């Protein structure tokens, strides 16, 4: 059996618009069936389909890279009839395909580098393909190694530790002040887009939302769509005593929250901390509020400074992560060479010895040793087999250990030449 090529054909946020990605989307419960369908394509032995909102990729192990690429392009074209899918597809084979899946699983190819979801999504795709019987040894080894690479990238670099948006920085800060946000109350002052995003992110962590606006009708409208309670802006002093986080983004040209209001609120709060996020420009909150004990005020500059810092931190980790991918790729290729290189040569060597000795034994048994009984014959055959195994133990071990090195191929060639073994077809052991 010929050594299998690993091929990936797909598209992602880098190459295809969201409309096309939506068209090709495959729900989780259909991933297995899709993988099975791909595995049945001409020339394909094994398959796995990764489908997320940012990418749709088919990974296959095939006898011929070019044939499977053609089949996979057809597969994608059939799923999005009328769309120019072909222009958005990329294709990698062998080492480049393996590098690609390592980078994808490690979230180095993600829209937000370091995001944690992609590893889980690849694992789901793997499980679905495995359950559908579409996986084989080649993809299993490659994808398992991708999981190891991703795990190393997450644990050995700071790639997943930084925050990347104003909203996520606000959530991180609130979490580090209050712990879990499940029982916390967030007050949204105004209706700026960024403030809404931050409030939404906090609510997604379980916080309860209250909305206050200069226009009460607008507050009611905003609150209704978010399951929150609405208040007129005049309720602010009272609300400040009850909520834990305030997100401000009104269009006011003066401070909506001043030091005296905050001081009065903190007196009633008896020291309970208050986190204020002021995303408005011009600012809605007097900066001196941050001087009060237990009040933590972050304006848009503070938040964006933290976003930049987190992004630059990730930049440093990026190089480290790519290095880990390189190391894991080298190790994977080494193992693959060992698997593919030693197996057929060892099998041919054993077969050569066994058939030669058996032929000689048969000849002796039919001539000089003709008089031996069945028991003696069986004992003689067993002894000869044991002798062959013992003789071949050392060369087998040497071939296996050297196969993982650069000299592996040369050694296998020497053994094949020495014993006139037939040229192997570089088959891959299961």
């Amino acid at each position, binding site marked *: 059996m010929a050594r299998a090529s690993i091929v990936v054909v797909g598209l992602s946020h880098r190459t295809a618009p969201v409309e096309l990605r939506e068209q090709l989307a495959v729900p989780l419960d259909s991933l297995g069936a899709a993988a099975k369908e791909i595995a049945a394509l001409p020339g394909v032995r094994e398959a796995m389909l990764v489908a997320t909102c940012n990418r749709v990729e088919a990974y296959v192990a095939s006898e011929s890279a070019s044939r499977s690429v053609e089949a996979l392009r057809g597969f994608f074209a059939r799923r999005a009839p009328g769309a120019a899918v072909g222009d958005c597809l990329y294709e990698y084979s062998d080492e480049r395909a393996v590098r690609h899946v390592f980078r994808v699983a490690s979230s180095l190819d993600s829209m937000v580098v370091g995001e944690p979801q992609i590893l889980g999504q690849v694992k789901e795709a793997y499980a679905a393909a495995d359950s559908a019987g579409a996986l084989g040894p080649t993809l299993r080894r490659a994808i398992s190694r991708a999981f190891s690479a991703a795990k190393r990238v997450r644990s*050995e670099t700071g790639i997943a530790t930084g925050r990347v948006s104003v909203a996520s920085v606000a959530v991180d800060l609130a979490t580090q002040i209050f712990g879990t946000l499940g029982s916390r109350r967030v007050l949204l002052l105004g209706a700026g887009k960024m403030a809404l995003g931050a409030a939404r992110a906090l609510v997604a962590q379980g916080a309860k939302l209250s909305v206050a606006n200069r226009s009460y009708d607008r507050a009611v409208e905003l609150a209704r769509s978010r399951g929150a309670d609405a208040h007129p802006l005049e309720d602010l002093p009272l609300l400040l005593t009850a909520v834990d986080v305030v997100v401000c983004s009104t269009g006011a040209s003066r401070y909506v929250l001043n030091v005296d209001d905050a001081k009065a609120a903190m007196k009633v709060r*008896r*020291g309970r*901390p208050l986190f204020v996020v002021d995303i408005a420009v011009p600012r809605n909150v007097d900066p001196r509020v941050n001087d009060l*004990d237990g009040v933590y005020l972050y304006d848009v500059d503070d938040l964006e400074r933290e976003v930049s*810092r987190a992004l630059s931190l990730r930049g440093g980790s990026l190089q480290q992560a790519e290095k880990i991918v390189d190391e894991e790729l080298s190790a994977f290729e080494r193992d693959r060479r060992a698997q593919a290189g030693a197996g057929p040569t060892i099998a041919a060597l054993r077969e050569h010895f066994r058939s030669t000795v058996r032929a000689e034994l048969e000849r002796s048994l039919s001539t000089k040793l003709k008089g031996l009984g069945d028991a003696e014959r069986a004992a003689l055959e067993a002894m000869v087999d044991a002798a062959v195994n013992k003789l071949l133990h050392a060369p087998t071990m040497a071939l296996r250990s050297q196969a993982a090195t650069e000299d592996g191929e040369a050694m296998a060639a020497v053994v094949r030449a020495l014993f006139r073994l037939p040229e192997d077809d570089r088959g891959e052991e299961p």
Partner: protein
Amino acid sequence: MSEVLFSATAAAYSVACVLWLVYLRGSEAPSLARAPWVLGVGVVAHVLRDALRWAVEGIAPFAGIGPTLSTLALVIAASMLLLRRAGPRVDVLAAFALPVALGMLLGSRVSHSGGTPSGATFIVHVVANTLGVAAAIVACAVSIAYLLLERQVKAKRLGALFRRLPSLEQLETLSTRSMHVAIPALTVGIITGHVVAARAGRGAGLPWQQLFAMATWVVFVVLAVLRALGAWRGRRAMLGTLAGGAALLLTLAIYAGRG
């Protein structure tokens, strides 16, 4: 053997403390997972050492200030292991408590060992004080973590501590719980201490030492009252706890010096 176990204990406490401190400084330390194991080894060595000393040399855990300091160090170290159950990231607080435990362990060498404690009141006095001081030291470790984290959040300089310490709220809760253990235990300790002193006829002797211990206890009680009333929370409460902890360590040092 006792000496070997003592050295192993001191080394394990030091290594565990360094591992946590290195992690808190921001290093990506895969070895962090080993820190609790190293501390666990230290605690086991410590127990074995004190048990061996009791069995072979007859020095009981509370026989004088030296053995008491050693027991105190053991209780603090073991508390840090148990504290891991309180939630994620809590184990890093050991970085702030272990130096005190190590100091007490080393201090136990130079402090006097007396006879085996006798009398129920005296035993209650020593056990209660040990528990109270250990809980207060844990509260101080929590307070240090709180103040460092709070400073970063307030100053908007979010460093490694921001990502690696428990939340301010969690630290406040831990500090309050530790004080809930410390104050009743120290109260029992101070009452039984007076009873023991009176029985020994030392009621009028060395009054300034007892007065200092009393003043320390008053600091803790005032702190508890202010916290309970909600007058002190957060930074102020943590600074108060540290002040109480410092007074407590000074009291211990005075008693250790007296022998």
